[in-house]
């Protein structure tokens, strides 16, 4: 069974998914961070494929993309690093990246290698639903990869229902109109949106991302969804870290407040 589906079968609340950029802060950190995250108790791991023009990302993740590219990260290098992933790690892994590097790698070769190294799902923010349905879905399904769609406060109920129909994993709820980036607290407007979606009775679980940074925002998100995704706040921790193991453990502990 796909590890993402298994996770949501076993756990229905307080799910923590953590994002970081492959090859950041150092080229060789990708696997180290994945393993520390699993030990620290993250439920899912999202690894970013760095891109020169990440339009859906705020300054923190942009900067990590630039540094990772300067460090020499490419999809080929990333797949080499992930070659040993499933020897040590059984947490669901999602790759998050933009369309162009995937196209240049070759869509089918990309999907095939994802399955070989044990990737479970993909988040491609600039891949629209229409393109997914026309050309990508067949390949993703053939290689047992789950596609994760985003929704935002501006997404209509009708479109959310359509996205729910074409999803077999979870829906990524972008917390507010904006790019990725940490916030201290969610306001009334966002909470109302969380509640509105929560009451839609969708078939798929939801994780809330963009702006989760601490225990407060994590709690606010998980009250209205099965879990939350943290990116920028974790990247900042990595940037400042002198001891990855210690800092990653402390980070996860602080978010979950246990």
């Amino acid at each position, binding site marked *: 069974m796909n590890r993402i589906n298994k996770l949501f079968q076993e756990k229905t609340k307080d799910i923590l998914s953590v994002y970081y950029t492959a090859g950041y802060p150092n080229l060789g950190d990708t696997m180290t961070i994945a393993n520390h995250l699993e030990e620290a108790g993250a439920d899912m791991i999202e690894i970013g494929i760095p891109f*020169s*023009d990440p*339009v859906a990302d705020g300054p923190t993740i942009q900067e990590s993309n*630039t540094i990772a590219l300067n460090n020499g990260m490419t999809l080929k290098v990333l797949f080499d690093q992930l070659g040993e992933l499933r020897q040590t790690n059984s947490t669901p892994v999602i790759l998050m990246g933009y369309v*162009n590097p995937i196209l240049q790698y070759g869509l089918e070769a990309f999907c095939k290698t994802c399955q070989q190294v044990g990737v479970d799902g993909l988040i491609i923010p600039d891949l629209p639903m229409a393109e997914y349905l026309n050309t990508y879905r067949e390949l993703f399904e053939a290689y047992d990869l789950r596609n994760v769609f985003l929704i935002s406060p501006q997404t209509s109920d009708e*479109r959310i229902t359509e996205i729910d129909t074409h999803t077999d994993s979870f829906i990524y709820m972008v917390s507010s109109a904006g*790019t990725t980036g940490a916030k201290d607290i969610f306001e009334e407007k966002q909470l109302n949106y969380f509640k509105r979606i929560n009451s839609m009775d969708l078939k798929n679980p939801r994780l809330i991302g963009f702006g989760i940074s601490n225990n407060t925002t994590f709690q606010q998100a998980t009250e209205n969804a099965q879990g939350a995704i943290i990116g920028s706040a974790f990247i900042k921790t990595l940037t400042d870290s002198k001891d990855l193991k210690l800092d990653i453990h402390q980070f996860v502990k602080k978010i979950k407040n246990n």
Partner: protein
Amino acid sequence: MKYAVDENGYYGNFGGSYIPEMLYPNVEELRVRYLDIINESSFQKEFEYLLKQYVGRPTPLYFAPRLSEKYKSKIYLKREDLCHTGAHKVNNTIGQILLAKELGKQKIIAETGAGQHGVATATVCALMGMECIVYMGEVDIERQRPNVERMKLLGAKVVPATSGSKTLKDATNEAMRHWISHPEDTHYIIGSVVGPHPYPDMVTQFQSVISEEIMKQLEEQEDTQNPDYVIACVGGGSNAAGAFYHYLNNEEVKLVAVEASGKGNATGQSAATTVLGKPGVLHGSKTLLMQTDDGQVVEPYSISAGLDYPGIGPIHAHLFETGRVHFESATDQEAMEAGVELSRLEGIIPAIETAHALAALAKLNLKKSDVVVINLSGRGDKDLDTYIKWGEY
């Protein structure tokens, strides 16, 4: 129309709408409504009125006698440089701001490279009393100071793009990020035939007035609507799309697009996308794109900031692939020489972008009877510093 966009937003293999879901409602609203809005008679009336009384259209189609003598053919210049603000860019910004008003938007954002599109956007925002933010790469702000001050004088806020390579592509990224964060009250006026569908088609429609006028004006002067050649420079490709549009299905008219090849295509310091690019996805569409084997977008180089873009509009990728348009390229050196030549022969100082189109004259094996129309997309005032630094005049 054989070369028109299809219902999915594609020109052959190129185009589409590769945008984050956060932008979907905005782009979808545009897609559903743009044709109805721009075909409304009240919209048409206002658009035509402003093009005439504010922009100064129709722009002349000027027979250039001394240039014709030099290249032994009959050369006409379509004088887009005489548009208000000094380039064709304003045709599009007038159209888009009327559209934005119709959509009920109160704020406008734009990206700019050379600053011409930024100035054209700041201008129409002043005209309509709308708030205007222009994103411009930090590097371009330094090399295009006068246009930065023009935008400020017109009341726009100029925000430096400090990410990535700090030029046009990064300014476009920043504008898209701003739009993601302000989806409800803001319209994004893209400055060329790039971006997600329906932008490439919408901008083409607004610029198509150029070829519409050429047909009428050539008829008056040459007794035919059809020249042998239409030549235009290509950054994103909006002036070229406008100059080619009404000739696309008339295969007797040869269409020539001229890209900037900087210090030469072999040096790597070039912006000639059809020579150096491969199919890829950037800024919302699938098109030809300069990139590494790993799919990272490469920073182009040209002496002209307006041609310094790593892609071309999807319509041009299609016109290139089908062979309908012949693509040439001109180096910095060739363009600067052509710019000086036009200044001396006709008393017209062209924008350096435009000078690339002029440089193609020497490459085309023209015959004495050939009627050639060059789209003179902009005037050279903004480039005086570059001409001075160049020094060879």
